[in-house]
């Protein structure tokens, strides 16, 4: 039993699990994006896809056992630290993602107030 658990603790196995999980999440988002017509559901799907990409970056770039790259509490050298760049990138990307989603949902709300429509299938104002 213990061997099985240790097997799961190996970085390669863990990374594959993370990767498969994130990819499943990505495709759930993609499915929602293509199959759903409700504006808010589309934004939710986009967010799920984005989240999957962040998860891949964070999960693959860190290995179990690494510590945060902060010098404090007697730590004076960077040994066994995880790479801080992916986390900085993810934070930046999350902020951007929030801004885009906020913009999108606020437009969706305004559109709904003006027209009473919530579905992209009903958006036909721009066709000839």
């Amino acid at each position, binding site marked *: 039993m213990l061997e099985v658990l240790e097997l799961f603790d190996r970085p390669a196995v863990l990374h594959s699990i993370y990767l498969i999980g994130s990819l499943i999440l990505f495709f759930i988002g993609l499915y929602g*994006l293509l199959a759903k017509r409700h*504006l808010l559901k*589309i*934004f939710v799907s*986009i967010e799920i*896809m*984005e989240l999957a*990409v962040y998860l*891949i*970056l964070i999960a*693959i*770039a860190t290995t179990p056992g690494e510590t945060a790259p902060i010098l404090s509490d007697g730590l004076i050298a960077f040994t066994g630290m995880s*790479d801080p*760049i*992916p986390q900085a*990138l993810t934070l*930046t*990307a999350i902020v*951007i*993602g929030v*801004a*885009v*989603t906020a*913009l*999108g949902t606020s*437009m*969706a709300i*305004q*559109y709904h107030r*003006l*027209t009473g429509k919530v579905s*992209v299938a009903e*958006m036909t*104002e*721009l*066709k*000839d």
Partner: protein
Amino acid sequence: MTLHFTPVWFIAIPLLLAFLAPLWVRWRLLMPVLFSAQVALFALALSWIPAVQIAPILETIVIAPPLGIHLHLDAIALLLVALFSFAGAIVAAFIWLDNGAAHLRERPAFILMLLLIAGSNGMVLTGDIFNLYVFIEIVGVSAYALAAIRRDKTALEAGLKYVIVGSVAAIFILFAIVLLYLQTGQLNIAALAQAFGNMPAQMQLLIGLLMLIGLGIKAELFPFNFWVPDIYRGSDPEITALYSGVLVKAFLFVLFHLTFILLADPSVARNWLMALGAITMIVAELVALRQNDLRRMLAYSSLGQVGLITLALAFASEATTAGALFHMINHTLIKVLLFLLAALMLRQYASLKLTDVHGLSRTMPLAAGLFVLGALAVLGLPPLSGFISKLWILKGFADVQTFWPVALILTAALIEAGYYFRWIRAFYAPTDALPIAKIEGEKALNYAPLLVIAGLLIVLGVAPFLLEDWLQQAAQALLGREVLLNAVLGR
């Protein structure tokens, strides 16, 4: 402290001016600031030509080595920055002199337009792939908001479609960047280029495909451009001029910059990208034939030209690249002209359907005349500049005995002639109805920025040698992978 000129100014100045917007509102200076900022950036870009001709300017804003923000100003980046500021200045001048479109002269539009220009400049200047993503998103957010800035039904619909499609594209780009980082541990584009060849082939293909989908959506390539006509139809024509003139050009640059620098041998991607460009061009031109709304027609025409530029850039020879860059400049000038004309016509006629603009030349003779000039320049008739750029592209293909693109480009020009003349015929159609009364507020001054563009189209057509050296250098800079790698990595 002495001020010295660095490439970061092209990004910092518009950002700073945008954030100081409350001051400009209080002093009633919004439009003068918007216009003079673009003119200043344009002048700054021109003043740098001699320096960049000697050697590209690299700037690294160091946080702590090896971390830093890297900017790279070479001939092609300078060319595009100058082009963007010029297009921005023309659109700003048009909005400033204009009496209509009050929502474009308020603070939100001011900020968003400056952000759009700052982000586009950043996209062509940055040497760091994550910064590239950030700039893409800055441009994206300001473009989505600008599309919806009129806040009526059509504008909101355009904005919503744009924000959905645009954020999906950004996710694909981010995915590709994440894979690049996980594979190489690098974010600097030059360092990535060096490591790219050592990756497994499948990974290269996957990253390439993700990038192609993301940038293909943003750069409006077939089959990812289904959304474009709707956005162009719903947004204000003044804003659309910026999309067609600035945004698309920035994304095309990014697509080809990454292709040429990441791939040691760009011929791997050549046939695919050329095919994509050719299909984009032909499909868009054919669909444009059937459009009954001026803005949708201009959107498809813009897509056709994007296809042509892609076709010529993907061939990756110096002659076609220089031609394609010249055509980029021409297309920006022409589409800014045509979309601003559409803005004027829209105000007079309220609808731009083919049946509604019959006899337009009697009410707006100058607008109709300028439309004809723009149409002839798109078709590439001498002595307008579109002729020279198409000639360079055709000559570049013919010189190396590749004739199928030549045939396609000429066919596309014929189709273009078909639909542009359909509109011109409508404008000059004799009608029994009396000319519509001129609406209030149309002044001769409105046409001043448009006449500047018209003059430039003729000047560049008669004297293309003014730009020839610069375009050659820009083409060399775009194709010169080794030079760039050596300069950045200091080998």
